[in-house]
């Protein structure tokens, strides 16, 4: 029998990736797996004697993908060698927690890697992560903001940047509820940096005393929980992918804070968000799950003239240098920031 001692591991990233893919693609394709184009690091296992590819595991930032071993090594502990290396790569790169999606039927394999299940959709997909202790710590920290018996609402914002539309949504929630928790999407892939977005949201809601602004995390609309959110060009967003994010909110975040209502704006413009609202409603409330349902309130978007106010409109106007038009769409604090950071030549 082939032993995993006859295996040599290597890590490829950056410039070496392209040539390695020539070998990886057919290896995965032969086992009915697609090669994910976003993978930045691959751990490869080759046979030491004749340098055949025996297994691989990829990393797309903090998400492990494309894990596969060749049939002859499946009982030889190769999977755990790959696991060790890919986990070390992820943790060394500075990520606090690592994630992976897998078919429901493969959960056991990854539990053997030390991963725990966060959410699962029976028969379909499971979402697992490595550091359960870090996650429990995060949820525990949220619990400090919990108010028993208070009608609690929540809003998740990217706010790129914070507009009068966001302000309207927060104001309505603030009127309806005793307390409102805002979460800011942490991923730094927007025109405005995470820190700038956070500052503008805090300034923009500072007068609303029952509103608490939380920092974002890996566990709420992130690259890990909702990769599709950050790929605006993809017309068809995978329903399962956005279901995971909705279930994360319902199972962990909402119970920690006692949230019973989540607010979103209607979405006439953006396909990703429109689809997200439909899936969000289903998985927050009607989908059978052992956690209490969270009601989704979809508020009609605030308009300015005939068009809805949107952050993407503001970004277009910044590009066009039309500051007068921006003034009508954003609160003074956001406007001041845009004027200050985008007018110097």
């Amino acid at each position, binding site marked *: 029998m082939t032993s995993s001692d006859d295996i040599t591991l290597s890590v490829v990233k950056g410039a070496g990736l392209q040539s390695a893919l020539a070998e990886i693609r057919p290896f995965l394709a032969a086992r009915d797996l697609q090669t994910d184009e976003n993978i930045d690091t691959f751990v490869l296992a080759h046979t030491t004697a004749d340098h055949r590819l025996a297994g691989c595991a990829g990393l797309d930032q903090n998400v492990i993908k494309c894990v596969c071993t060749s049939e002859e090594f499946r009982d030889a502990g190769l999977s*755990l*060698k790959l696991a060790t290396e890919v986990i070390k790569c992820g943790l060394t790169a500075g990520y606090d927690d690592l994630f992976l999606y897998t078919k429901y039927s493969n959960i056991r394999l990854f539990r053997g890697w030390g991963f725990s299940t966060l959410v699962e959709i029976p028969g379909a997909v499971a979402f697992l992560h490595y*550091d359960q*202790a870090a996650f429990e710590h995060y949820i525990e920290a949220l619990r400090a903001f919990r108010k028993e018996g208070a009608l609690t609402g929540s809003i998740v914002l990217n706010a790129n940047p914070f507009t009068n539309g966001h302000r309207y949504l927060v104001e309505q929630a603030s009127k309806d509820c005793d307390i409102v928790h805002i979460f800011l999407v942490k991923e730094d892939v927007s025109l405005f940096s995470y820190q700038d977005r956070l500052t503008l949201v805090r300034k923009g809601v500072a007068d609303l005393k029952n509103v608490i602004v939380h920092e974002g995390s890996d566990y709420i609309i992130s690259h890990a929980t909702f990769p599709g959110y950050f790929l605006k060009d993809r017309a068809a967003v995978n329903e399962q992918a956005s279901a995971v994010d909705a279930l994360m909110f319902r199972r962990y975040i909402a119970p920690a804070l006692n949230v019973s209502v989540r607010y979103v704006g209607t979405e006439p413009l953006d396909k990703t968000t429109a689809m997200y609202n439909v899936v969000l409603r289903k998985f927050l409330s009607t989908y059978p799950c052992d956690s209490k349902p969270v009601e989704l309130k979809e508020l009609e978007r605030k308009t300015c003239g005939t068009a809805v106010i949107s952050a993407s409109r503001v970004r277009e106007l910044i590009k066009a240098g039309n500051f007068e038009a921006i003034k009508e769409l954003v609160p003074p604090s956001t406007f001041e920031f845009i004027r200050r950071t985008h007018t110097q030549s």
Partner: protein
Amino acid sequence: MKVIQKGMAGTLESSDVLVVVSPNDADDIKLSLQSKVEKQYGNAIRKAISETLAKCGVTGAKVDVRDQGALDCVIRARVEAAVYRAADEKNVKFGGQS
């Protein structure tokens, strides 16, 4: 030794243990342990970990241990190696020899 970065040692392979030591804002040890033999040896494993940390003079750290049935001496060696790496200490004296 002072933990200033993430330090790792070991593997997830059978009879080994993967130890990750990382900085902790508070001055205490936050240990999380997963072990195949938690029921039988959980306390002995915790003791091996905390004794090794104490011997290395580590008072503030997050310590994540994934045990796949490692022997006591393996656990101690892996914890010690992870601490050296987490402290970026190149002057290694394994087993506390001087």
